C-alpha cells in the first residue's frame, strides 16, 4: 500500500503505514546490508543546503544498492538560469525511479508530486513538512521505550515555529500520549495544535520551567530557541538559559527517560549531557538512516 506513494506530509501515511515503516526500519537496523535496489536510480535534489538530511538519505540509498544522481548545490543547476521547479521535476522524473528533494519554498514537494511521474519523498520544504524526521523520531521513541502507547512526552523550546514538534504531535496522536509543552510565552504551542489535541481528547499541560516536568517525562524532546524568533531581545536574554539542559538536572528523571533533539543543537543541550546514557540524540540521527532505508524500500516496492 505504500508502494509508489509519495511521502510529502506525515498525514499522507496512515497509522498502519507509519508502523510498517518503523517495522521495516527495525529490520534494516538488524540487517543493514540488504542491496534490494540494485539497478534502481534515485535522484537526490537539494535545492537548499543540508548536511545531515542529505547524507542520511544518500547513505540509505547507497546501502540499498541504488545508484544516486542529483545535486547538493543549486548554483550548479539550470535553476540559476531560471528553470522552473516544474521543468526540473519533469526532466528528472524521466531519468530516476524515485526523487528525494529538499526545497526552500513551502509546498514545493506537494507541487513536485503532482508534476512527477515517479514518487517524491519530501526531505523538507521550507518550514512546512519533513516527514522522514517525524518517522525517525517515532522509531527512536519506540526503540527506547519499547512502545509508542501511553507515553509522557515533554517538548521543550521553540514550540511555535518548530515543524518537527508539530508533525510529531500529529503522528503520536494515535498512541494516547500525554504532552508537556515547555516554552517561553513568545514561543508557545500554537492554538491550532492545542485544538487538535482537545478534539482528539489527548491530555497536555503547558509549563515555563523544565524542572516542572523532568521527573515525569519518558521522552524529553529538545528544540532550539533561536534568538531571531524574539521580538523583544531582552525577553530572549531573560529566558535563554531557562531552556538549556544540564547534566545535573537529570538526576530526578526516570530511568527510562531519553533525550531527543532533531539537531543541530546550538547550546540548548550542554555538552556535559552527552556522556549521560539518557542522551539519545546521536543514536536518533543514526536511526534516521534506517528509517530512510525503510521509506525508500517501501515506496519502491522492495519490501512488501
Amino acid at each position, binding site marked *: 500500500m505504500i508502494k509508489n506513494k509519495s511521502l510529502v*506530509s506525515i498525514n499522507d501515511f496512515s497509522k498502519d503505514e507509519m508502523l510498517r515503516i518503523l517495522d521495516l526500519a527495525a529490520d534494516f537496523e538488524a540487517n543493514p546490508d540488504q542491496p534490494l535496489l540494485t539497478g534502481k536510480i534515485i535522484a537526490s535534489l537539494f535545492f537548499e543546503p543540508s548536511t545531515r538530511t542529505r547524507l542520511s538519505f544518500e547513505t540509505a540509498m547507497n546501502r540499498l544498492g541504488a545508484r544516486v544522481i542529483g545535486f547538493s548545490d543549486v548554483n550548479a543547476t539550470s535553476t540559476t538560469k531560471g528553470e*522552473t*521547479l*516544474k521543468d526540473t521535476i519533469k526532466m528528472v522524473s524521466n531519468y530516476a525511479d524515485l526523487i528525494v528533494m529538499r*526545497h*526552500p*519554498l*513551502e*509546498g*514545493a514537494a*506537494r*507541487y513536485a508530486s503532482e508534476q512527477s511521474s515517479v514518487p517524491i519523498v519530501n526531505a523538507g*520544504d*521550507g*518550514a*512546512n*513538512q519533513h516527514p522522514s524526521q517525524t518517522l525517525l523520531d517515532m522509531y527512536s521513541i519506540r526503540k527506547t521505550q519499547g512502545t509508542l502507547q501511553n507515553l509522557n512526552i515533554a517538548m521543550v523550546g521553540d514550540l511555535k515555529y518548530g515543524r518537527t514538534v508539530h508533525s510529531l504531535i500529529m503522528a503520536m496522536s494515535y498512541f494516547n500520549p500525554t504532552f508537556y509543552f515547555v516554552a517561553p510565552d513568545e514561543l508557545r504551542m500554537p492554538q*491550532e495544535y492545542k485544538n487538535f489535541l482537545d478534539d482528539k481528547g489527548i491530555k497536555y499541560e503547558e509549563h515555563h520551567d523544565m524542572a516542572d516536568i523532568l521527573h515525569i517525562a519518558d521522552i524529553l524532546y529538545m528544540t532550539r530557541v533561536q534568538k531571531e524568533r524574539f521580538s523583544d531581545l531582552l525577553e530572549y536574554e531573560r529566558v535563554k538559559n531557562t531552556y538549556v539542559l544540564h547534566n545535573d538536572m537529570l538526576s530526578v528523571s526516570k530511568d527510562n527517560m531519553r533525550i531527543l533533539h532533531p539537531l543541530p543543537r546550538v547550546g540548548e543541550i550542554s555538552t556535559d549531557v552527552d556522556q549521560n546514557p539518557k542522551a539519545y540524540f546521536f543514536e536518533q540521527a543514526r536511526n534516521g538512516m534506517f528509517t530512510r532505508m525503510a521509506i525508500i524500500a517501501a515506496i519502491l516496492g522492495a519490501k512488501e
Partner: protein
Amino acid sequence: MENNDKELKVSAIKEGTVIDHIPAQNLFKVISILGLEKIPNAITFGTNLESKKLGRKSIIKVADRFFEDDDINKIALVAPEAKLNIIKDYKVVEKRIVSLPDEITGYVRCFNPKCITNHEDITPRFSVVGRAPLELKCHYCEKVTSEEHMEIK
C-alpha cells in the same frame, strides 16, 4: 418592498441576472471574479446603496447572461450574502443564493510569501477549513489564510 425602491435606482433589464446584496467595498472583486469586465454584455451596477443588512451594498445587473452554480459560488468569498434574481421578460423567475464551496481553486492568493504558488505559475488550491470567520488552508504549503489576509488574484 424596500428592495424594489433601491433597484429602481439602476435601470431594469429585460433578460439576465441581477446580483444583489454585494458588500459595497467588494463590488469590483465580484466583477473581477466573474470576469464581467471581459464580456460584451450590457452591465449596469450601483454601489454605496443603503442596505439594512450590509450598511452599504452594491448591485450588478447583467443583461442576457445566466450563471452556472459553480461560477456564482466563487463570489461567496467576497459576497457571502449575495442573492441572484434571474430575470425573464422583466420578471424575476428564480431567486438563488450563493454557497461557499468546500474547495477554492484559482482566484485567491496564498498569504504565505514562501508558498511555492507565489513563486511559480501554479493555480492556487485551498480547502475551506473555517466558514465564520473564513479560513482557507493551502493545498501546497498547508498554511491557513484568514479572511483579513485574503487577496483575490
